């Protein structure tokens, strides 16, 4: 099956900044895919290159098999993008804006779908309100509505929940999940790593314009350890090298160890005590995406 997105050897430089340094990536149709990375990692540049807002220096990008440069009309018809910035046109109401956006994509009579999108995004009561009159969260949802107006098979959401309150965020994700279940491919960038962990089946992590990790969410979560042991000490101690190598990070004056089997817990605790450490608190846990993210970024 044709991949929803195929990116091959894409580079992009802005003066001295290498924004993308050779990105290769494929996203299959129907995936809920996460694109993570710190600020400046190249996520938005990659999305911009995919949507035609930026032109890569080299490499190719395809959406549903359509090259975004040579076959840009078909590629853009297949892609809906929710931009990161909270932008709107102050001249128009929500409905006017959606009707115009439909027209840009060649759709004349799109009222039924527009009504459905407005309903799912809780925007029906504001359909005839000017965009200026909407709250930040509503403007964000209006942006989502705009991206969906031409029913694109591939939807890219660039930090769509920034500034959206918890209740509305859940409603938004329920709708996006439904779209994914209906067959739409979703690509998500977010700084809320728990969102990516919950929603995405596969995740790519970008750093300095390169993909530094690409795997299923489950595999990424087990990359450093299956389990975690957090130990708080009365005072810092020097651990022997073998034990120090098991420390994933230091948290709030304590140490976080990774381990595979629960039998290892006794060995770790014994090692800490042998090094002269006095344990004042401890907790067991599972790694989350934030820990994986920090670990991968530090490794690279």
């Amino acid at each position, binding site marked *: 099956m044709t991949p929803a997105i195929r990116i091959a050897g894409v580079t992009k430089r*802005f003066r001295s900044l290498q924004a993308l340094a050779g990105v290769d990536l494929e996203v299959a149709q129907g995936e809920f895919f996460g694109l993570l990375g710190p600020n400046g990692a190249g996520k938005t*540049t990659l999305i*911009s290159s995919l*949507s*035609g*807002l*930026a*032109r890569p220096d080299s490499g190719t990008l395809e959406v549903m098999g359509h090259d975004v440069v040579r076959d*840009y*009309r*078909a590629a*853009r*018809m297949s*892609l809906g*993008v929710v*931009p990161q*910035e909270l*932008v*709107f*046109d*102050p*001249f*128009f109401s929500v409905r*006017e*804006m959606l009707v*115009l*956006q*439909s*027209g*840009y*994509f*060649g*759709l*004349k009579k799109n009222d039924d779908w527009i009504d459905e999108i407005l309903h799912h995004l809780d925007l029906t009561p504001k359909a005839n309100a000017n965009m200026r009159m909407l709250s930040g969260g509503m403007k964000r949802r209006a942006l989502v509505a*705009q991206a969906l107006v*031409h029913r694109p098979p591939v939807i890219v959401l660039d930090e769509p929940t920034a500034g959206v309150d918890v209740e509305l965020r859940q409603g938004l994700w329920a709708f996006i999940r439904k779209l994914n279940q209906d067959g739409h491919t979703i690509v998500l960038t977010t700084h809320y790593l728990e969102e990516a962990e919950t929603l995405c089946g596969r995740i790519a992590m970008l750093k300095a314009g390169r993909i530094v990790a690409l795997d299923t969410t489950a595999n990424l979560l087990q990359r450093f350890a299956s389990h975690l042991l957090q130990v708080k000490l009365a005072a810092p101690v020097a651990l022997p090298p073998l034990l120090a190598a098991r420390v994933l990070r230091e948290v709030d004056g304590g140490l976080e160890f990774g381990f595979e089997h629960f039998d290892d817990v006794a060995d770790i605790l014994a090692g800490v005590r042998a090094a002269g450490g006095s344990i004042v608190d401890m907790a067991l846990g599972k790694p989350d995406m934030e820990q994986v993210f920090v670990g991968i970024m530090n490794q690279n």
Partner: protein
Amino acid sequence: MEGFKTLLYKECLRFWKVGFQTVLSPVLTAVLYLLIFGHVLEDHVQPFPGVNYTAFLVPGLVMMTVLQNAFANSSSSLIQSKITGNIVFVLLPPISYREFYAAYVIAAVLRGAMCGAGVLLAALPFVSFDIAQPGWIVAFTLIGGAFLGSLGVIAGIWADKFDQLAAFQNFLIMPLTMLSGVFYSIHSLPAFWQGVSHFNPFFFMIDGFRYGFFGVSDVSPWTSIGVVLTCFVVLAVVTLQMLARGYKLRA
């Protein structure tokens, strides 16, 4: 094609929604020019034989209004969209750069023509004249409007802030318009300045447009239409090249 039609409709709707600012204000400004300059100079200046000054002034003011508003429409729309960021709404859809250009320029011509028609209608109670050759009026309105609409697209894309656009408007468009013979016949100027005027494309637009009203002009309307058409084609090619390359629009 639907994308182009929608973008054109949106550009027209945009200026129509703020019609007091975009249509009525320029008409009022031009009528004030007409009343004041006409009153002061009516008995002192007769630019063409048999044509009084107020009647002479009307076509110049109409064309000046057409040109200034055509420029203002495309330039202000683009810079507003760029600065607020909503330009992405027209860059993400499958609209070609040619359709993009055509939509912005045609909307600019329509606003210019609407403002020009408004000035003409508002002037009718104060002057009476026969229109000698309406074909020239239509031709210069369309080509002159498209010329300034293109220039507006260039300025709107090039400018990164409103200050730069204001500089473009006040240091280029305004002097070229005011020194183009709107208020005088260039035959009243010293020979040197008459020569300089022939390097100002706005002069040919005003002069040719005026020919449509009176059947007399400073230079042949064929010369004027040739100059204006050439300038427009050059500007259109430059603008299309900018759009094709995505200059300041697509990173």
